[in-house]
């Protein structure tokens, strides 16, 4: 019978992932690749926003996309139609991506020749917020039908995001969605968050968003 010992760890369950994420972020910085982690609920229009974003930037930046899904490759096919490199990551039932899975995805995508790698995270406002993927920026999409109280219900998601896109503003007249309120709630959680009201369907507001993103990418990729 071997000796029984106690090993003290005293560390957050997330600490290990945070370290891997920081290491990945440093590597991406030195490789001059900007990684955007895009998060939202299912049905907020992530893939459509992404398609519009790519259309706006693909002549100016070299872009690649990783589509994370529990199963299926519906989204990767849609994105591939825009002409940029796209791969599908299957999380095998997991509700989020962590830094190690993101690293494997980046290797599969082969990002060396890219300026901007986009990770479309699993549609979910809880779990992806807790796991740092190593991204240069976190962006989330909140769509009008979801309601303006979401920042109160999912505070962590709004806290970790650098930018929030309010999508589907073309249907604003049909919903009790208060734009001033949502901005107030987001800034309560995160005073630095940039907010972009957009409609991926009509294209309204998309230029302000893509200009911001392009500036962030260029800034990150400068020596």
């Amino acid at each position, binding site marked *: 019978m071997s000796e029984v010992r106690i090993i003290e760890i*005293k560390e957050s369950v*997330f600490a290990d*992932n945070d370290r891997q994420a920081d290491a990945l972020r440093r590597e991406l910085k030195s490789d001059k690749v900007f990684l955007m982690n895009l998060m939202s609920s299912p049905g907020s229009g992530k893939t459509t926003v992404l398609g519009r974003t790519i259309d706006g930037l693909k002549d100016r930046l070299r872009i690649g996309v990783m589509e994370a899904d529990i199963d299926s490759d519906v989204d990767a096919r849609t994105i591939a139609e825009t002409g940029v490199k796209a791969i599908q990551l299957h999380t095998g039932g997991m509700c989020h991506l*962590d830094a190690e899975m993101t690293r494997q995805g980046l290797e599969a995508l082969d990002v060396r020749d890219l300026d901007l790698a986009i990770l479309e995270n699993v549609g979910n406002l809880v779990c992806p917020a807790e796991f740092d993927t190593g991204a240069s920026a976190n962006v989330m999409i909140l769509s009008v039908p979801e309601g303006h109280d979401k920042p109160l219900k999912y505070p962590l998601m709004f806290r970790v995001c650098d930018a929030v896109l309010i999508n589907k503003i073309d249907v604003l007249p049909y919903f009790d969605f208060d734009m001033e309120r949502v901005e107030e709630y987001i800034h309560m959680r995160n005073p630095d968050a940039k907010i972009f009201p957009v409609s991926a369907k009509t294209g309204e507001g998309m230029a302000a968003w893509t200009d911001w993103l392009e500036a962030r990418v260029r800034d990150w990729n400068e020596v």
Partner: protein
Amino acid sequence: MHELGVTFHIMDYVERVAEENDVTRVNKVALELGEVSTVIESYLHSCWKWAVAKRPLFTDCELEVETIPAVTFCEDCGKTYGTVAHGKTCPYCGGGNTFLIQGNEFNIKEIEVE
């Protein structure tokens, strides 16, 4: 919300610690879990039971969870109160300038090994 995911994270982490310390068997993993963390203890136990059966290092490994009560501090009156019972509004002065001082933890405390 993501108990299975975090179960794997804990096991991966413990496996690495085990390797560094020449451990052949992990008897017990002790966690500290805040009352208002996003993890549900009963789900965690179910996931744990399922997952440990798949890795030899963890055969019959016990999961011990110590609950850390959630406590909120009120800036308006300086008192603290139980978060679960009263939420964001201070039960003493009715103020809303409150913040959580503990109860959000999700830590690996220690492991018992052979």
